[in-house]
């Protein structure tokens, strides 16, 4: 239904609509439409981006990355220090209060770190906290976090996955009570939550202004879940919604052509790739031959597909990572679009008549079909199957995917340890199983010196490109559509920061 509905719907909407913007500036309320809903306001028990976005405004983390300079700055912590490879020390900000009046101090930090890294708590995304050994209170405003093993990307997780909860209140009301009435130190306090439908936030008067975020500019934020993007657009045009994100490219372009609204394209950490079973773990032989893998790389015209189906700001990539990520070397062997060369390589490998292979995908059907056709042209006959993401992930675990078109969001972590290192880790689902590659990535993941990390990642990514293990495709961008009097600059991590929004 969705493709049909999008084509018919957007054509009708954009053709018939008058311009009637009457945004929420007059009552200082920004109304936001999300396609999915907030599944749990106790954000440690949700793996959805919607809960991370909610968490960014309601809670604070100890540190955050200054998106302009790329440097770490203190938020709830005034400063941090690597005491050694296994110890992080945070000096906490004083005089900070939670929304319910509770004072913020080391006890809150120690509780949050220890409680949610305990496997018995069962958080939704254990990989974001399982590097923590323990947290220790040194004095009322000093905390030390002990790591299980050296983990240079630790601060990325301190920012995105370890929002600080009030220890007394949380233990008093428990997870279910907290999910109904969450309390944080963030720029916005929760006014109401209607599970599955939406929530309302009010700017927190007592917010610690000295921090890097500053007070929220807009008084009230109303978030509603509107699943159908056409309905979102109708609400935008009738003035019931001021802000929508992840708007499909075709609709965003039509809205931009009409004018009257701000349409912004922002890069994201997500990127696309073709996985090939280079180790032969599924019993499919052809991809174990480097010449076949090179042929696949030469057969796909990535630029043409990008131009046809994605935003012009989508970037063609040379490595299996996003260039915004730390360590994502792009200066590696590349493979031009050259179908003749692909045919010659296939013939050389003994497949002059080509071969047949199962090809799986879960999104961007048109791009997947275009790739299937390009492969067909050089003699690789694909049996393209579309599955839900979870069904596809399950088949990966069962060694049933010889070739797939996938994308990876890295949990918005701007570090190669969250992307490339996860694919080629030597585990059961590693398509390559090259011990040299796994060792290089592991060194990069566990060394604290940034230069040494870069060097190892660079070697690893050059090796992947030389061997043509997989096919790097493109990065994804996200479209934001806003009422024209709303001012907001999207960030690559897609953690929509409500407190950065303001009226023009």
């Amino acid at each position, binding site marked *: 239904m969705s493709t049909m509905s999008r084509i018919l719907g957007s054509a009708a909407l954009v053709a018939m609509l008058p311009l*009637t913007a009457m945004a929420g500036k007059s009552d200082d309320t920004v109304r936001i439409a999300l396609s999915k809903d907030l599944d749990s306001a106790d954000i440690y028990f949700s*793996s959805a981006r919607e809960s991370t976005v909610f968490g960014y405004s309601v809670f604070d983390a100890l540190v955050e990355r200054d998106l302009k300079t790329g440097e770490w700055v203190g938020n709830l912590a005034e400063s941090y220090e690597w005491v050694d490879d296994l110890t992080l020390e945070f000096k906490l900000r004083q005089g900070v209060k939670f929304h319910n009046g509770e004072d913020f101090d080391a006890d809150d930090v120690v509780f949050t770190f220890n409680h949610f890294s305990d496997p018995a708590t069962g958080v939704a995304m254990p*990989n974001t906290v399982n590097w923590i050994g323990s947290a220790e209170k040194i004095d009322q405003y000093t905390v030390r976090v002990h790591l299980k093993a050296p983990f240079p990307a630790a601060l990325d997780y301190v920012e995105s996955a370890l929002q600080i909860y009030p220890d007394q209140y949380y233990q008093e009301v428990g997870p279910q009570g907290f999910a109904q009435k969450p309390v944080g130190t963030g720029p916005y306090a929760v006014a109401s939550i209607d599970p599955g439908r939406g929530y309302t936030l009010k700017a927190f008067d007592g917010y610690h202004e000295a921090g890097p975020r500053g007070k929220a500019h807009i008084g009230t934020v109303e978030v509603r879940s509107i*699943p*159908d993007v056409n309905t979102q657009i109708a609400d935008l045009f009738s003035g019931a919604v001021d802000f929508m994100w992840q708007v499909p490219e075709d609709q965003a372009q039509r809205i931009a052509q009409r004018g009257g609204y701000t349409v912004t394209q922002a890069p994201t950490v997500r990127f696309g790739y073709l996985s090939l079973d280079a180790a032969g773990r599924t019993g499919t032989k052809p991809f174990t031959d480097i010449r076949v893998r090179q042929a696949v790389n030469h057969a796909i015209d990535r630029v043409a597909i990008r131009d046809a189906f994605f935003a012009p700001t989508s970037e063609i990539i040379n490595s299996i990572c996003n260039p915004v990520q730390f360590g994502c070397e792009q200066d590696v062997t590349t493979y031009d679009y050259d179908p003749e060369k692909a045919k010659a390589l296939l013939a050389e490998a003994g497949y002059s008549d080509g071969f047949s292979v199962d090809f799986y995908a879960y999104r961007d059907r048109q791009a997947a079909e275009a790739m299937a056709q390009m492969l067909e042209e050089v003699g690789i006959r694909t049996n393209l199957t579309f599955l*839900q993401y979870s069904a596809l992930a399950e088949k990966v675990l069962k060694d049933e995917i010889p070739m797939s078109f996938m994308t990876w*969001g890295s949990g918005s972590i701007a570090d190669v340890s969250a992307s490339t290192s*996860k694919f080629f880790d030597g*585990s059961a689902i590693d398509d390559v199983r090259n011990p040299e590659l796994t060792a290089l990535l592991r060194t990069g993941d566990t060394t604290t010196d940034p230069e040494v990390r870069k060097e190892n990642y660079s070697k690893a990514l050059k090796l992947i490109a030389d061997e043509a293990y997989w096919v790097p495709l493109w990065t994804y961008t996200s479209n934001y559509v806003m009422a024209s009097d709303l001012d907001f600059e999207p960030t690559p991590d897609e953690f929509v920061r409500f407190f950065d929004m303001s009226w023009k």
Partner: protein
Amino acid sequence: MLRYLLGRLGMAALVALTVSVISFGLIYMAGDPAVALAGENATPEIIAQIRAQHGYDRPIAVQYLDWLAHALRGDFGVSPYFKIEVATLIADRLRITMTLGVLGISFALLVGVPMGVLAAMRPNSMIDRAALFIAVVGQAIPSFWFGLILIVLFAVNLGWLPASGADSWKGFVLPTIVLGYYATPAIMRLTRTGMIEVLGSDYIRTARAKGVPPRKILFKHALRNAVIPVVSLAAVQMGFMLGGSIVTESVFALHGAGYLAWQSISRNDLPTMQALILIFSLFYIIFTFLADALNAWLDPRLRD
């Protein structure tokens, strides 16, 4: 009569049990809920951990019997996504779906029956043709498209009604029309057929000959008899509406039980899915049973 009803009731219970067994099996075959729960960046170890935590690693028969034992006591478990009791969750969402269902079927009856009567009074006239046209369009037009057209017209161009949400009664107007319109054609056509048949029958001719006013013939003598099958059709349609408002609910962002079903399917939320399937099939079974009972009461020949 009692024996007939008890027989139908027994059948209904068996159907409900069969539905729950089949749906449990199908859901299980559709995908591993642990993989869906774990999200994108999960490792095989984490998935295994989640599987054990929720008991998805037990044999399917054990899982089913465990579920059934709890379900019979009204305990449908906790949704792994919303972290609240499935029963609470569904009860909350059903309010919207029920409201929508009642409004939808009322709309269909209020529009369908008069249109059917009008069409039957003058078969093959312009009125009949117009009614037929409206019926064909109602069957052919996809709900999401019809919903969008109404949104464009009433929410955006005229600004009379909201495009989405259930904050006030206004939010229900457009969804009611969309949902009700889909059921209108069948009711209209059945009324028309029934009326034409009855109007041509002997006792109507007798009534006319006696000089009974036409209005009285139409409403007192003809409609009463013609509408019997329509009542049972409406009951079945109501069952359809309660389980089938998924598209309407998502177009108008109503967040009722239909939309919840769609969400839980796309997330492999097993306990919610299972409970919803059971409840939807129960609705259907109950309304079909009511229709049967009603028919048996109205028409003694069916009781044997």
